[in-house]
């Protein structure tokens, strides 16, 4: 009884049991722990510094201990300074980033699910070509396509509009490929046949059979698409060129460039200094961090590794 409950505590959660043989010799475990700890410092300390920095003044960043907390008042000051840049530009950038990423997400997930379902459950002329092109465009680097896209957008007069970044961000070949694999595995043809014998149209079969099965897939596609598109830099940097269209990453780049906030010897009169830049970076990172922590257990360790295995 005691043994079995112990077993449950140790192992059953994610599978691997604590094997007898993997009891480590003490010296191995010390080396292991030191290395893991060094990398924990490498990853965690900069993040802690970034969280604390906006609570201090620029001078306090220089004088006080790097990981000291400043004050709530100063954090408020830092936000006021950051907000004062071009009359609240930071909020406009963030809002635009959100609108661009979410609109693209709806387009990307919608088209991927529909196409993946169609490719997995139907046979039609050109299907193989579509699958092959999907695989090719998946590995095509962004920088190779951005330039022709820029000229194309210029030709149709859409440069510097939200459409010029939303539509390319909504093209999601990797998502279509994942959806295709998912439906191939989880939808036996017999299930769809049963639906069509019952007189359901193709669309009804998708609504009643395909879609209810797609919950984990929807989550995975939304996660992958949002995390890539929220902090996109190169594409918007090329397509957008005015203060009333740029997103948060491009805005942050412009903020740093126009204020020289990070130059150690620069004595500018602008209120944008290092704490303000740290706060802006933090604002950019927070939505993705939240999504990561919520989805980490399910997406990263489960479905994603499952998707690349096989």
């Amino acid at each position: 009884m005691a043994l079995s409950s112990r077993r449950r505590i140790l192992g059953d959660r994610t599978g691997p049991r604590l094997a007898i043989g993997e009891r480590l010799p003490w010296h191995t475990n010390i080396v292991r722990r030191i290395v893991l700890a060094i990398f924990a410092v490498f990853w965690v300390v900069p993040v802690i510094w970034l969280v604390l920095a906006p609570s201090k003044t620029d001078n306090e960043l220089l004088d006080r201990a790097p990981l000291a907390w400043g004050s709530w008042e100063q954090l408020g000051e830092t936000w006021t300074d950051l907000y004062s840049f071009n009359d609240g530009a930071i909020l406009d950038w963030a809002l635009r980033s959100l609108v661009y990423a979410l609109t693209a997400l709806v387009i990307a997930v919608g088209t991927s699910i529909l196409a993946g379902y169609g490719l997995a459950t139907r046979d039609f002329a050109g299907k193989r070509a579509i699958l092959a092109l999907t695989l090719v465009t998946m590995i095509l680097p962004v920088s190779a396509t951005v330039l022709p896209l820029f000229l194309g957008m210029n030709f149709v007069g859409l440069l510097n509009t939200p459409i010029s970044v939303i539509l390319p961000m909504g093209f999601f070949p990797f998502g279509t490929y994942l959806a295709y694999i998912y439906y191939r595995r989880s939808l036996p043809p017999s299930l769809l046949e049963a639906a069509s014998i019952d007189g359901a149209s193709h669309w009804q079969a998708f609504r009643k059979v395909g879609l209810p099965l797609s919950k984990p897939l929807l989550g995975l596609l939304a996660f992958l698409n949002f995390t890539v598109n929220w902090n996109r830099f190169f594409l918007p940097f090329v397509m957008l060129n005015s203060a009333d269209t740029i997103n948060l990453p491009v805005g942050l780049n412009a903020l740093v460039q126009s204020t020289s906030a990070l130059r150690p010897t620069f004595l500018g009169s602008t209120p944008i200094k290092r704490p303000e830049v740290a706060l802006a970076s933090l604002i950019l990172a927070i939505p993705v961090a939240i999504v990561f922590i919520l989805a980490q257990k399910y997406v990263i360790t489960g479905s994603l590794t499952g998707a690349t295995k096989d």
Partner: protein
Amino acid sequence: MRRVSRIEGFANDRRQAGTSRDLSGLAFTSSYLVLLVLFGVFPGVYAVFLLFAEFDQGTPRFFEAGLENFRIAFTDFRLGEVTLNLAKFLAVSVPLGVFLVTLLAVLLHMRRSRGAAVLRTLYFVPAALAGVPAVLLTIFMFDPNVSPFAPLLRMLGNESVVNTLSQGNLPTIFMIISFFAGAGAWIAIFYGGLNAVPQELIEASVVDGASPWQLAWHLKVPMIKPYIIYMLVIVFAGNVQLFAEPQVLKAAAVAPISPTWSPNQLAFSFAFELGLFGVAAVISLAMLIVGLLAAAIVLRFTDLFRT
């Protein structure tokens, strides 16, 4: 036995018959197909035309340039420098990145405790800073005046951010940025792969007297080889495209850096500062070929697709 085969044959027949004259598949795929043509096929094909196009005030004249774009790209005085920069960055970032990710995944996997799970999450969360924030944070971390690592930086002889971000250090700095934001996800993927190693094999090796290191080197690492190769290909292809890191470092202007440090920046400069889109297309194509060649070489000398 006979009945089974008859049912299977029936199902196959139905599938063939029911789908051949059916447009519903195309209907489901149509919205994606529009995006695929506009943002996958069109840019790919147009890029080829650009290679031989001349530009007059932003208007393309196709096939007018002949091989002029190639001549301009390959005789540019900056080409040697940006290639060397990129080569140094790749030489540091790819092998070291893959080695450290493998090492950390194996170390975490040696004892699958609650602590190891917490560490995996901690390693992963900085991925939220990928892109511009990671570059800015790196500038802070390498500034001895504000960095929590200042004692270490000073010990290594750096008195100011101009020392730490000097030209010679940049390949390493860019490696650290990409590792900082990218490694956590790879560690999680490798860890998942290690979990799939059959427990019986591990136990059998331990009974045979294998140490944890031998176990890792002779059993676990070979078992996750497909993931390692996958990472090699993806990271190499991604790192060839280096752009945001040197670009943001340039914008921050904390230390002198060449305005065109990477090939991608050089292409960008040709396109948007000089309007020579054809020349930029040549450089983009060269980067694409380098990435594909590397992938082909890696796949040729490993047995990823031989099962």
